[in-house]
C-alpha cells in the first residue's frame, strides 16, 4: 500500500520534471487554457449580468395616456370639471390600478388645459369650490384660480398642468406626479 503511493509520487515526479521541454510546453498551454477559460467565462456571464441588471437598465415605463372624453365636450366650459382617470402603475411583474382626479379647465387665452388635483403644497386632493369660484385645498387652505394659478396660501406654485394630446378627437392626458413644496414644477414619476 505504502510502496504503491510512493510509486505514484515517483510517476508524478518523473512526468513533471522541472525544466523539461514538456514542462515549458505545459506552462504555455496552461496560460492558454487559463486565458481561454476566463474569456469563455466572461462571455457566459454576459447574459447573467444582463438578466440581473434588467430592472436598472430598462427604460422607465412610459405612462400611458388616459382618455378624458371627446374634445367637443369641453368646448364651452364655464368652470373646471373633474374627471376620474385610471392610471396603471407597473411594479415588476405586477401592476396596481389607481384612480386619480384631474380637472379640465381653460387658461386665460381660452385654451384647454388639464390640471392634476394633487396640491403642489403637500399633496392633498384639491376640490373645486364652486361658491368661491376657486380651488380651495382642504388641508392648509391654499387657493387657486379656475385656471390653476396660485392665489393665496402656503403653496409655492400654481396647480400643475398635465401633458395632453388628441387622439381621434378624444382628449387624452398623461398623469404624472410633481415634487411638492418647491416653486418650480418638477416631475418625480
Amino acid at each position, binding site marked *: 500500500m505504502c510502496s504503491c503511493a510512493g510509486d*505514484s509520487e515517483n510517476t508524478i515526479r518523473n512526468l513533471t520534471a522541472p525544466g523539461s521541454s514538456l514542462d515549458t510546453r505545459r506552462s504555455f498551454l496552461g496560460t492558454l487554457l487559463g486565458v481561454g477559460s476566463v474569456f469563455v467565462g466572461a462571455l457566459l456571464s454576459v447574459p447573467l449580468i444582463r*438578466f440581473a441588471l434588467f430592472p436598472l437598465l430598462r427604460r422607465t415605463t412610459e405612462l400611458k395616456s388616459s382618455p378624458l372624453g371627446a374634445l367637443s365636450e369641453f368646448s364651452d366650459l364655464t368652470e373646471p370639471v373633474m374627471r376620474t382617470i385610471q392610471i396603471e402603475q407597473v411594479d415588476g411583474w*405586477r401592476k396596481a390600478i389607481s384612480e386619480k382626479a384631474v380637472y379640465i379647465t381653460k387658461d386665460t387665452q381660452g385654451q384647454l388645459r388639464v390640471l392634476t388635483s394633487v396640491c403642489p403644497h403637500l399633496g392633498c386632493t384639491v*376640490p373645486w369650490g364652486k361658491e368661491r369660484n376657486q380651488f380651495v385645498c382642504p388641508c392648509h387652505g391654499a387657493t387657486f384660480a379656475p385656471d390653476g394659478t396660485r392665489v393665496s396660501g402656503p403653496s409655492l406654485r400654481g396647480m400643475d398642468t398635465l401633458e395632453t394630446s388628441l387622439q381621434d378627437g378624444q382628449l387624452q392626458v398623461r398623469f404624472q406626479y410633481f415634487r411638492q413644496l418647491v416653486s418650480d414644477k418638477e416631475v418625480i414619476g
Partner: protein
Amino acid sequence: MHSTQKSQSNGSALPEKGLWGWLNRRTGLDTLLRTALYEPIPGGARLAYIFGSGLLFIFISQVITGVFLTLYYVPSADHAHTTVAYITKSVTAGSFLRSLHAYGSSAMVIVLLLHLSQTYIYGAYKGRRELLWLSGTILFGLVLAMAFTGYLLPWDQRAYFATAVGTNAASEIPWIGESLKRMMRGGTEMGTLTISRFFVAHVFFIPACIFALVASHIFLFRKAGAAGPFTENPFKPEQKPELFYPRQVLMDLSLTALLIIGLGLLAFFVPLQLGPPANPADAQYIPRPEWYYLPIFQWLKYWHGAASLIGILIIPTILAAAIVALPFLDRSVERRPWKRPVAMGAYAFVLFALLGLGLRSQYVDMHDPGVAQQLAKQKTEEEEYMRKPFEPELSSSSLAAANVALADPLAAKGKTIFEAQSCNACHGDAGVGTTAAPKLIGVGAKFNAQKIKALLRQPSTAMTQGGMTPSDLKDEDLKLLIAYIESLK
C-alpha cells in the same frame, strides 16, 4: 529555503516570487492545483473518461442559472406562473437563461447515463470502489429528483398535470403510497403548498445533498485512483500512467465546449415554451412527462390493482437494489466486457427495455387519434400563449378598490364623495393610509356607523392634531361616505 527544498522534492519548481508565490504560501493553492491536475491515469488519457467532468460542469451551470432565475421567481400558486412568464417574456436574456436551465437538466440526464454506462462497461466499479459506485448511484437518484421537482415550478398546464400524475404514481406504492403522495403535495390536492415543498426541495435540500455527495464522489475517486482501461488490473494498476493534465484535461474541456455550444445554440434558437397557467379544472388536458421519465410513465400503465405490488414495488426495488449493490455482488476482477456476458446482457436488457418503453409510449400517443389531436391542441395553446405579450398581475390592493365600486351601490357613491372630499389625499386611495394619516381599512369593524359619524362631525383631539377637519357634509352624503368606509376591509 525550506519551502524551496520542499518544492524541489515535489518534482517541479513552485513559483516563489510575486503575487502568485505569495498567494501560494498563504493558501497552498498551487499545491492544490497540482494535486488536482497531476493525477495519474493508468493506460493514458481517453475520450471515454470525459463524462464525469462534463457532469460537474453542467451541475455548476445549473447552480448558477438556477440562482439567477430565483431573482424573479416567486414560489406560490398565485405568482409562480406570472413570474416565470415575466422571466420568459420581459426580462432581458430571461428566456435564454430559463431555456439553458431546463435543457441543462436534459443534458445532465444524458451525460449521466453516458458516465454510468462507461463505468459499467469498463468495470470501473471494481477493486475497492464500492463506496464510489454507491455515491454515484445516490447522485443519479438526486439528479432525477431535481428534474422532477424543478418541472413543477413554472406552474403551467404541462408542469401542473405532469406533477399531478407523478405524485399520483407515488400513491400506487402499497402501504406508504398515499402518505407519500400527501407528504409531497402538502395535502391531498396539488396547490400552493406543493409549490413550496417542491421549491424548497429543488433549491435547498437536494442541492445540499448533491454538493455533499459530489465532494465525497470526487474524494473517493481520488482515493481509489482512476481505474484506467478495461484491460487494467482494478486493484493494482500496471499500465503506464499519464497525468490528467494536459491531454485528459483537453479532452474533458472539449466536452465542456461542446456542451456550452450545444446548450447555448439550443437555448438561443429553440427557446423553451411556457404554456398557459395551470387550470386544475381542465379535464381535457393530457399530461406527458419529460422524455427521460417516459419509460417509467409507460411502465406504470401496465400495472394495476393487485399486480401493482409486483410492477410498482417489487421489480423496481430489485432493480434499484441490484444497481446499488453491484460492486458487492460482482466481486470478480475481470473487467473486459466480452468476458462478462451476464453483466453486459443485463445492461443491454435494461437499456433496450427503457428505450422500448419510451418509444412505445410515443407510438401509443401518435396512433390514438384522440390523444394525438389533444396533444397537438395543447402544443398550439402553448404557442398561442407564448405569442401574447406579458400581462402583469393585478395587485390585490387595486382589485379591492375596484371591487367596492361594483359591490354596494351606496358604498360606490360613498367612494365618489371620499374622493371629492379629498379624504384619499391623506388616508390614501381606498383608505390604505399614507404617512399623513392612518388607514381606514377595518375601521368599520372597530366602530359602528354612529361612532364613525360622530368622529367625522367632531374629530377627536388626536385626529384634529393630525390635520383632520370636521365634516360639513349633508347627512345623506355622510351616510354614503360611512357606507364606503365600512366597506373598506
